[in-house]
């Protein structure tokens, strides 16, 4: 039941963000599917107790690779697919706590959370780097084979 709600809600959240960014209507469904996939990877890794950073990295990686595939199939720019699906991974909880402790004057605890936010953002960026690398290596191999 909980899983079902997570699947449905991650789909709705990605599609909703797609509406805010004015994504073409024929790409909206794709965004939703990629959003669900990314969130499922994140939940799965977190469930295995492998840590927050790895979960974010692998989720971003999954989103990046599927976005490349969707972009090729539908012949649309890749950013249409990966931006809305990325949104659930944004470290909202940690940044909120960092702001809260700054506002309450507890700077050392706030900086601890701020460092966590920075590391999660770095992990997501790294996931995208790896996805891009995989995509480029794949297309290079394919062009070498064809020629």
């Amino acid at each position: 039941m909980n899983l079902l709600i997570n699947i449905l809600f991650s789909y709705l959240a990605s599609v909703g963000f797609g509406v805010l960014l004015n994504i073409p209507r024929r790409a909206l469904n794709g965004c939703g599917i990629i959003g669900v996939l990314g969130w499922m990877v994140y939940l799965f890794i977190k469930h295995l107790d492998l840590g927050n950073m790895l979960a974010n990295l692998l989720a971003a990686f999954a989103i990046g690779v599927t976005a490349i595939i969707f972009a090729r199939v539908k012949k649309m720019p890749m950013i249409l697919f990966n931006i809305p699906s990325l949104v659930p991974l944004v470290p909202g909880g940690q940044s909120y706590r960092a702001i809260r402790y700054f506002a309450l004057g507890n700077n050392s605890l706030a900086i601890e959370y701020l460092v966590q936010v920075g590391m999660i953002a770095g992990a997501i960026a790294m996931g995208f780097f790896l996805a891009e690398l995989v995509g480029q290596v794949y297309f290079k191999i394919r062009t070498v084979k064809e020629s």
Partner: protein
Amino acid sequence: MQDTQMQELIDSVMLAGKIMIESGADMARVDDTLKRIARNGGIKEPKIFETTTGIMMSVPDYKLAQVEPIQKRTIDLEKVSRVNDISRAFQLKKITVEEMKVKLEFIDKKAPFFAWTWQVLAAAMISCTLMIMYNGHWQDFITTAVIGGLGYACYYFINTTFKIKFVSEFLASLVIGALSVLAVRNNLGISVGMIIIGSVMPLVPGVPITNSVRDVLAGHLLSGLARGTEALLSASAIALGIAMVLRFM
């Protein structure tokens, strides 16, 4: 090639670049599209240099050069997608240079955008679903949806009527924070933190963050840093609004 036709081609390249950068495309995509249009139009070695604030292009064979400054930056991925489609159609020789220019001018003036009611509804949907996904309480569900929608509506109207960046984010997050605290005080919700986290989500600058990472990776360091700064400023504006509420209420 005749001079007028060359002029039309350069105009279309500049216009396509302007639309794409204004609507929030990443630089690798802009570079790819502009070079594709130029090459298919018969320019052998187009030299195009683009940043988030302007495009420069020169045609070595003809000793021609053009500069196009870019003043505003919005987010409208529909336009990016349409310019991309047009460049592909031009590559397949489905449309001529003149037709392409007319189509680009049409896109620049108006492309379909979701009505503001839909956007506010979408913002409400994002807020409540993400709140539950982050392990929030079901009792806060409706409150978060309402506050998220109101916050986004505030952001949207300031952005469209006054066109001031960062102030809109700041005021919207101020409204969100104040409403959340009031809602919890009047027993309409349980956790101020979860309501705020959910409602702020529609304001997150997702496009600048993703683009800045991609630009830096693709070697467009100037644009990547510029966009990173933009994202950081937006995030700080949101944080400041929330911090003020938490400090003084």
